[in-house]
């Protein structure tokens, strides 16, 4: 009856609406339309579920660790196209509350456009798309609109995991089930992954205060997640405190840390970390929390009134054993864990490999094979047999390096050193003072000519900035693939660029010490497969030698 009255002609007189209002509405509708297709509804049976966002055409989607943790390695995902897809767990980051899954059963998936989350400001319009309260049984996402309430927020961890650093705070509704879904800007570009909200006394419903992991943090972790690993977060090996005059100073530091070896000491001021100025303890934790363990980042300090620029290798927050425990599926409360493993869906079988330290080692194999193929493709045109590198050092003197399958020799002004491959490399850290330049070069050649399979036990580690000295949080940087190998008594990281060139090697003859760092560079336009034109060798922040490779001019000959 009431409805009938409201439909009478008198009540239906058109209400004048400002065209700008209609236009703004249309813009929002279009933005939501762009964001919707990549929104994933995750269903994990009795274990609940959540949301996710597709990031690549081949089906990789990001979600929260706390969504996949109870779900296990296989889950069912719905897309707004109305279809259900099997999905398999790829990698997890318990500390940062991120997880990577791969949707299966389609050649090409829709994926979200990703924006730089450091461009977001307070007051910007935003919206969430996801599966709150698991309402999306029709597979259509729920949308909540709001504004950005805060940027660069810090939210304390639960124990040592689920720490939200440098996150976005929004008043768009984030409720249970929205976890893992996308936060989008006014143009429908992804700026964050929703995962947390302040609830407190009103129960688990949104009170206008939700938090999203920044897309920049996601970008930093994509490589290590694709590796199928249980990823860890970074520590500088030092804790900081804010001094009375508003400086961030080192309050404690581990003498076993790389930061200590680079010269960081008690009471030193941290001026900037990874390119961002640090003025509060939160700002320090914000930068650190977006970075994977193992990366090298620039740190500017003020020590005894003197400004110094360091490059520090970040250590892991957790031990390997702790990390495994954190990532484990929680035991169901009140009933005994089911001793029989769950039957995996047919589509997922063959894509799962359980191995120590991995969420799913199958995907480590996939990435290692991809890098191997890339190295092989770059090799084709290159030299085989013994490699001879000749030229001048940066200091002007001549050098000669010969690398073969069985031995290696280096001639530099300080002497001649030889390495034999039949003996373990950790006993041959030659030439003296280099920390193992010759073993690094021999293994570099072996990787280029024979691939990762020839480097003993090798895993795909993930990605890292190509040039750590220039790395800045918030600015997209050139990333390279990293392989981690254990061979002939040494550990090494090898860095492979997008064209398949092996551009750098870090080699440890002893764990917990400074590695020998070797960096290769090629002249502009040098053909793929050619030997580098410049090799830098460093150890512990000090240059060992720079090798400029090329014909030695006659007038400068020895």
């Amino acid at each position, binding site marked *: 009856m009431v409805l009938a009255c409201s439909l009478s002609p008198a009540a239906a007189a058109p209400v004048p609406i400002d065209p700008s209002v209609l236009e703004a509405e249309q813009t929002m509708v279009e933005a939501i339309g762009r964001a919707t297709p990549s929104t994933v509804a995750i269903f994990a049976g009795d274990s609940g579920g959540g949301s996710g966002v597709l990031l690549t055409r081949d089906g990789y989607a990001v979600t929260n660790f706390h969504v996949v943790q109870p779900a296990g390695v296989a889950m069912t995902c719905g897309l707004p196209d109305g279809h259900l897809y099997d999905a398999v767990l790829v990698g997890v980051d318990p500390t940062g509350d991120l997880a990577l899954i791969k949707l299966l059963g389609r050649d090409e998936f829709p994926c979200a456009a990703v924006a730089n989350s450091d461009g977001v400001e*307070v007051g910007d319009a935003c919206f969430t798309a996801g599966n709150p309260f698991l309402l999306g049984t029709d597979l259509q996402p729920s949308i909540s609109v709001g*504004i950005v309430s*805060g940027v660069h927020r810090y939210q304390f961890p639960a124990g040592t995991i689920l720490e939200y650093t440098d996150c976005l705070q929004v*008043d768009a509704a984030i409720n249970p089930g929205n976890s893992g879904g996308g936060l989008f800007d006014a143009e429908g570009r992804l700026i964050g992954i929703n995962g947390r909200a*302040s609830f407190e006394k*009103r129960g688990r419903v949104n009170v206008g*205060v939700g938090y999203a992991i920044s897309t920049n943090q996601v970008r930093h972790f994509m490589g290590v997640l694709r590796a199928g690993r249980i990823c860890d977060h970074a520590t500088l090996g030092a804790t900081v405190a804010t001094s009375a005059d508003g400086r961030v100073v080192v309050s404690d530091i581990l003498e076993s840390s790389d930061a200590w070896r680079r010269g960081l000491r008690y009471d030193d001021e941290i001026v900037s970390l990874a390119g961002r100025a640090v*003025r509060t303890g939160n700002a320090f934790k914000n930068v650190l929390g977006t970075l994977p363990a193992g990366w090298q980042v620039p740190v500017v300090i003020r020590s005894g009134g003197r400004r110094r620029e360091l490059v520090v290798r970040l250590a892991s927050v957790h031990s390997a054993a702790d990390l495994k425990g954190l990532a484990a599926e929680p035991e169901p409360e009140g009933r005994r864990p089911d001793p029989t493993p769950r039957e995996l869906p047919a589509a997922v079988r063959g894509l799962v490999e359980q191995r120590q330290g991995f969420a799913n080692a199958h995907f480590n194999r996939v990435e290692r094979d991809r890098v191997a193929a890339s190295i092989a493709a770059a090799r084709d045109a290159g030299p085989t047999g013994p490699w001879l590198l000749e030229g001048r050092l940066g200091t002007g003197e001549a050098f000669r390096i010969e690398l073969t399958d069985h031995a290696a020799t280096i001639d530099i002004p300080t002497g001649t050193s030889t390495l034999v491959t039949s003996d373990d490399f950790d006993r041959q850290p030659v030439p003296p003072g280099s920390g193992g330049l010759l073993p690094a070069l021999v293994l570099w050649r072996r990787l280029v000519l024979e691939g990762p399979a020839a480097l003993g036990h090798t895993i795909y580690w993930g990605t890292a900035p190509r040039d750590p000295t220039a790395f800045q949080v918030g600015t997209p940087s050139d990333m390279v693939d990293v392989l981690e190998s254990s061979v002939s008594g040494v550990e090494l990281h090898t860095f492979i660029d997008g064209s398949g060139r092996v551009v750098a090697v870090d080699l440890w003859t002893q764990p917990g010490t400074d590695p020998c760092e070797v960096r290769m560079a090629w002249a502009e336009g040098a053909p793929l497969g050619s030997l580098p034109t410049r090799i830098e060798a460093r150890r512990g922040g000090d240059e060992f030698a720079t090798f400029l490779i090329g014909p030695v001019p006659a007038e400068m000959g020895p």
Partner: protein
Amino acid sequence: MRHVAVRFLVAVVVVVAAVGLHADGPATPRQVAASAARHVVKIYGAGGVRGLEAYQSGIILSPDGRIATVMSTVLDADDIECVLDDGRRFAATLVGVDPRRELAVLSIEATDLPACDVEAGRAGPGTRAMAISNLFGVAVGDERASVQRGVIAAVVPLEARRGAAEAPYAGDVYVLDFTTNNPGSPGGALVDARGRLLGMLGKELRSTASGIWLNYALPADELVAGCQEIVSGRVATTTGPTAAPFDLRALGLVLVPDLLGRTPPFVETVVPGSPAEQAGLRPDDLVVAVGARAVASRHALEMAVGSIVAGDPVRIAVIRDGRVVDCELGPRPEEARP
């Protein structure tokens, strides 16, 4: 001295309204958020026990350091600290409180502060608004207070909630359609789309009947009127930082010291010849109700008595030897200061 301050407050209202952000046409939400957040301070004081936060929000009212906030247990501290938007920290003193509007004015030793631009008129339902506050204590140091957006849903007397929600204020409030009144939000700014101050976010208020939380703000005209009354000394005013909202000594009642946040309101002594003595109150009586309102703590008792309009009778129920005894103390005194 007080009169100067009053005139100054009025001057802020008029002058700033003329030269505000809106003079240059519409501003983007980014600009409004950034500009309005400069007027909001983070306030730290007493609390930290379950359900009672040790932090809230405040609004800079004058360039020389007058800050408006909500009267609450946070201010029951010897050391009240204000952190400005730029991260500067100041020790604050309590200038005074308006128990009826549950309003307090703080003062910090500073000059050239970004005082806010007050919208003198009432906003109507449907007005777009932003709320800026220290909710959940998310922001610390120079991190900007949290910004939320919504509309004013209604302008109604809070009295409509009496009985359902405990609040002494019975005038109009802006009821908001977004969840603004969170822990730490009280004292935050409600601004319009041009960044002008529409009101101040109230305390967390929950209907005891329905369990529903109310999101509301005290309109700017009430805020300014209350602040002027506090500064001019027309309401209960104290000079010390540990001021109670209403001084029970005016009734001749001395309670046991408020050592804990929830000290039961036991009578310590009764001043000879006072209304309390004449009403038959005795040491060791436990006050359980003021009028129809149950009081479980000394703080609740002060709030309850403070909300009685001056001149109205004060009725107190106490427990003595296991029995409830009603006492009539006569009219509440006009001037509560000692």
